[in-house]
C-alpha cells in the first residue's frame, strides 16, 4: 500500500482540474503497470505514455 504516492497523484489531478500548472507529468509506466508522477528533470521509462492530455480532456458528463 502506498498512500503517499496515491495522494501525490490525487494532488496533481486536482491541480490540473483547476488549470494549475505544476510542471510535472502523469505517465503510465508499462514496466509497473501503474501511473506515476514524473517531476521536471526526472528520468522516465522511454516506453511510458504521458497521460496529461487524457486527464485534461475531461470525463464524460452524465446526462
Amino acid at each position: 500500500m502506498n498512500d503517499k504516492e496515491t495522494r501525490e497523484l490525487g494532488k496533481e489531478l486536482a491541480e490540473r482540474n483547476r488549470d494549475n500548472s505544476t510542471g510535472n507529468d502523469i505517465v503510465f509506466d508499462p514496466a509497473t503497470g501503474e501511473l506515476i508522477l514524473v517531476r521536471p528533470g526526472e528520468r522516465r521509462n522511454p516506453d511510458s505514455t504521458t497521460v496529461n492530455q487524457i486527464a485534461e480532456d475531461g470525463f464524460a458528463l452524465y446526462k
Partner: protein
Amino acid sequence: MDKARLNLEIEILERYFPRRYAFIYPHDPSRSYLDVGLRTKSGRTFRLKISIPSDYPNAMPSVYVVHPKPLLDFSNNNLISIAPSGKMHVLSPSDGCIQLCHFDRSLWHSDMTLYKVALKCLVWLEAYQNHLLTGNDIDYYLRHCH
C-alpha cells in the same frame, strides 16, 4: 471488430498491458469484451469489463468494474446506490457493476483504442482511491468534458 483492428488492439495491449488482459468472445460482436486488470498506486487491483460494441471502433465501448464488487465509497456505501452521478463520474450500472465515465461519446472517434480507454479508466481509479482517502468527490480530481 474486424480482424485487422483486433490485431492492432492486441499489438498495443501486448506492449503496454502484457499478461493483464484477455479478449472474451473476440469474434462474436454481440458479446465481445476486453477483460483487463489495472493496478493503482495503493496496490489494489481492479478488473474492468470493456464492452466492445458491434460497430467498434466507430462506436465507443462501455466500461464496468467487475472486481471488486460492490465498489464502496468513502462512507462505505455501495457506489451503485448513487449511480448515475456526475460528482462521482459514474453512469448507470449493469449486472451490479459500476459503469465508469471515460471519453465523451460526442468526441469519440475511430482512432481511439481500447488501450486509451483503459488508461483513462486508470486515471479514474486513482481519483477513486483518493476519494477513499479524503472523502472528496471524484470530480474534485477529474474535470468534466466541456
